[in-house]
């Protein structure tokens, strides 16, 4: 970085969240900027583009009340950093890391660049420790493992917050009592939603092990660009310096992407799909890829980002690009929600890419992979028949078809549905699965190894867990 800190009052243009500062010299790309408004109020900004004598700056607090006359801009000569220490647990900050809890600033053990550095793919350890969330639709069908990034694709009005809170409450790795922490980043969610999480964390004692960054709906939208990065930098510090298993909840990524689009539009960039910038994939990857495990280190970062799909459209750019980066997705369904099923997880489009390494003998149970496979194929078949029934009625169905229908009905109401405080073990989840699979004729269980059918099928004197 060139010179330490220089101050100019040569703002020549203000458009949307962007200002242009002229007659400057030696401004570094990405440098942090402090803007002093005519009223004396100070706002934070960051250099988006630097030229020999001009800098383009995004203003995190928004540009309302800025002028091109007396507004002054101080370039710090530093890229954006966050102060970190082990004492940060239990703290609550706003979206740009200013304390909200009445406590003083964090006394740093370390200042960290919030953009971080990419983990060397060679240094990564393949995540394998399955997390028991106690939720059958996740544990049985799309097992989460430590170090995974598994987003919840939701829609407006669906209970994604309840689900995220339940996962936070119940998540555990069998046979391991280790240091854990929760990092929570809110981007544009309402006060009510934030209060819900706070209450829940407080009641379970998780708050003492949590760090919260809250950018709420009425906070400046542009700050949302840095909120998840602050959270993930904190998570990396806790995981890889303090050996903790960190669960990061980011909500709501759709709001984050809106802010990204706002900046792109103000800069008159060439828009990609639906007006979102062409680099959104790379930008989101810079967030989601900051999860995982590193060989030789104890800690881990597991990400649970939440996003609401506009109009429940999974092909919308935000869920679409997310799905291409994350290791699967949990998809909530309005239909199931309307039927009163909680959690309303539509397992068909769900996926956990890291599941295979985390299940099976010695991890969950030997029959897990086969049962999972069979449940999927049976449920898909049942849904197909259900759609057929809607057209032709039940008369034309064979006996097997009817059994599939019965299976599908009970799968939704007994396997997927469970209480908000119901914590099912892996064994319990799989036992329910067998119970339901036994509705079907045994010759239909083509995807399950005969050994497991003999051992776990209720008709064959079931193995007791």
């Amino acid at each position: 970085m060139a010179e330490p800190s220089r101050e100019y009052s040569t703002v020549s243009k203000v458009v949307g969240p962007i200002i242009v500062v002229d007659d400057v010299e030696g401004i570094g790309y990405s440098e942090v900027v402090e803007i002093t408004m005519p009223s004396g109020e100070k706002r934070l900004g960051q250099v988006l583009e630097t030229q020999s004598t001009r800098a383009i700056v995004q203003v995190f607090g928004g540009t309302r009340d800025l002028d091109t006359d007396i507004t002054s801009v101080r370039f710090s000569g530093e890229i954006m950093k966050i102060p970190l220490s082990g004492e940060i647990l239990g703290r609550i900050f706003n979206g740009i890391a200013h304390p909200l809890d009445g406590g003083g600033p964090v006394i740093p053990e370390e200042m960290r660049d919030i953009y971080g550095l990419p983990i060397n793919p060679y240094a990564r350890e393949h995540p394998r420790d399955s997390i028991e969330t106690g939720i059958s639709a996740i544990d049985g069908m799309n097992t989460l493992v430590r170090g995974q990034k598994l987003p919840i694709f939701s829609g407006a009005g669906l209970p994604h917050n309840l689900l995220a809170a339940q996962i936070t409450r119940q998540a555990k790795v069998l046979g391991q009592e280790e240091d854990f922490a929760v990092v929570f980043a809110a981007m544009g969610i309402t006060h009510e939603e934030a209060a819900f999480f706070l209450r829940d964390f407080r009641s379970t004692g998780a708050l003492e092990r949590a760090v919260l960054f809250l950018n709420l709906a009425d906070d400046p939208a542009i700050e949302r660009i840095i909120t998840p990065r602050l959270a993930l930098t904190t998570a990396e510090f806790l995981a890889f310096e303090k050996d903790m298993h960190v669960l990061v909840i980011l909500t709501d990524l759709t709001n984050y992407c809106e802010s990204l689009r706002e900046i792109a539009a103000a800069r008159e960039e060439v828009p990609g799909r639906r007006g979102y910038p062409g680099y959104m994939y790379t930008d989101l990857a810079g967030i989601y890829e900051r999860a995982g495990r590193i060989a030789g280190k104890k800690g881990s970062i597991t990400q649970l980002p939440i996003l609401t799909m506009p109009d429940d459209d999974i092909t919308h750019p935000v869920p679409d690009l997310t799905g291409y980066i994350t290791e699967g997705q949990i998809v909530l369904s309005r239909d199931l929600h309307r039927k009163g099923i909680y959690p309303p997880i539509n397992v068909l489009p769900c996926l956990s890419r890291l599941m295979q390494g985390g299940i099976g003998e010695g991890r969950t149970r030997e029959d897990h992979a086969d049962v999972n496979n069979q449940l999927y194929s049976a449920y898909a078949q049942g849904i197909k028949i259900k759609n057929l029934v809607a057209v032709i009625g039940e008369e034309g169905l064979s006996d097997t078809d009817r059994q599939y229908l019965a299976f599908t009905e009970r799968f939704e109401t007994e396997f997927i549905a469970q209480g908000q405080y119901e914590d099912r073990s892996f064994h319990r989840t799989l036992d329910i699965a067998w119970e339901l699979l036994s509705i079907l004729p045994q010759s239909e269980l083509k995807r399950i190894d005969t050994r497991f059918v003999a051992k776990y099928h209720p008709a064959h004197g079931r193995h007791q867990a």
Partner: protein
Amino acid sequence: MTSQAGVIIRVTGPVVLASGLRGARMFEIVKVGRQELIGEIITLEEDVATIQVYEETAGIVPGEAVLRTGESLSVELGPGLLGNIYDGIQRPLREINVLWADFISRGATLPALSEAKKWEFDPKVKEGDQVSGGDTLGVVQESTTISHKIMVPPGISGRIHMIASAGTYTIRETIATVRNGDRVFDLTMVQRWPVRSARPVKEKLDPQKPLITGQRIIDTLFPITKGGTAAIPGPFGSGKTVVQHQLAKWADADIIVFIGCGERGNEMADVLTEFPTLEDPKTGEPLMNRMILIANTSNMPVAAREASVYTGITIAEYFRDMGYDVALMADSTSRWAEAMREISGRLEEMPGEEGYPAYLGSRLADFYERAGRVLVCGSGKETGSISVIGAVSPPGGDFSEPVTQNTLRIVKVFWALDSDLAYRRHFPAINWLLSYSLYGEEVGRWWTENIGPEWVAYRKEMMLLLQKENELEEIVKLVGPEVLPEEDKLVLFKAETIRESYLAQYAFHPHDTYTGAGRQYRMMAMLFDFFTLADRALEHNITTEQIRNLPVKTALARMGSVPKDMEETEFAGIKTAMAAQFKELGV
């Protein structure tokens, strides 16, 4: 006037503008700023160059210097490539990890190949021999199965003036001198080659042999040849990556180049943990020994992602030049195209469709054209091949988008992945109605001659049944299955059996994961035996429902997962059971 250093005048993301660079060439590599970050010149206007920087540019200040190197982006080709893992511009990630830290910091540069390691060199020419580009000077046995030929670099010819005797050398030691008139070339075991130019070949040949992948739906219905090109488009979660991994594991190529282009870090970790533990079904060697990994994950610099595809294919060409069959997997070409779009956007170029640059189609074509079966350079008659398999990640799974469409204009094989199949957990989720292969005929000849005479007929019948099933399903949707005549019900049942017993293949099952050509044929034969008996049963007025309830159906569905050493007895058992069960029905 040419100058060796310029001055930065503008920085925006990975794109840097510098003036004072008159005389610099397009695609020349430069070192940017105080940290000497690696960049490449991508446009020139008067003395101003636009540079894409392969590393994070935060903190770079206008006024800092840009140094020319006079060289285009090149890779080092020589012993030590196999089993290695590189980023998009061939920086060795393993060594970087050892020397620096778990995170990739900026300005980390290291030689791509170990300079200290000594290799056992075995000369194959004598002093006085006439040689030209592509001729073998000697051989380094890099692993028990791969002998690494040390070749005369393209463009050099003359007489051998000196050749090193058998012994151990590092890659920097001169192992031969070639004299041509009064010009003398000192040759080491390493060549450098600019990644954006294809390495020369003597002649392009037509593909002949199938690339056997052990994946039944691919080898049987939509085969690819050695030297062929294929695309796998599919929405997220449809199993692109698993198919790519399966091909990397089991394809019967000599060398595999796997490019993780803008994809997930944890997936690369998976490859790195799993591949060394797997055995090549052909040689019994660890699969890692025949692989080169290029890992430029989505959060690594976008310009290096753009370069990664070229780095990979250049390495593939180098091994092809030795006469090997190379298979290259690029996962995913969409991320590569997006990197082009991102850079193009920063250059404020006039966008084409969906913001992609107008040259997207030609860049894709240039890349896939580097595949093929060829007569390699040199005085011999050796052939080598590169098969390219590119994953495509269409936004929203919509195949009408530009990357998919431009790719389809070039490739000969199309494996369309289908989210509906994936939701049903029918894997590989390759849609048999949309996919195609233009190599059917060449490949059919090979199967007929080497595996079994009925292959072409079986394949045709399978396709026909699946097509008929689709037509019948339309009717069923309107009127229900019960009103169909028995013949049509049997067609539906046959197609279902093909889908469940043959096309579905479980990648994570220790035996089902790979089915060799012979077993594929025997499985097909078994199914068609079953179908013949079923046809006969129908003539005896036995219903499809009765056939469906035969226990042998479950055994057929498990043929793929029978362990190799039990195949003979198990298959014989299925055959006997089949005959007996039909007999019981009175056939």
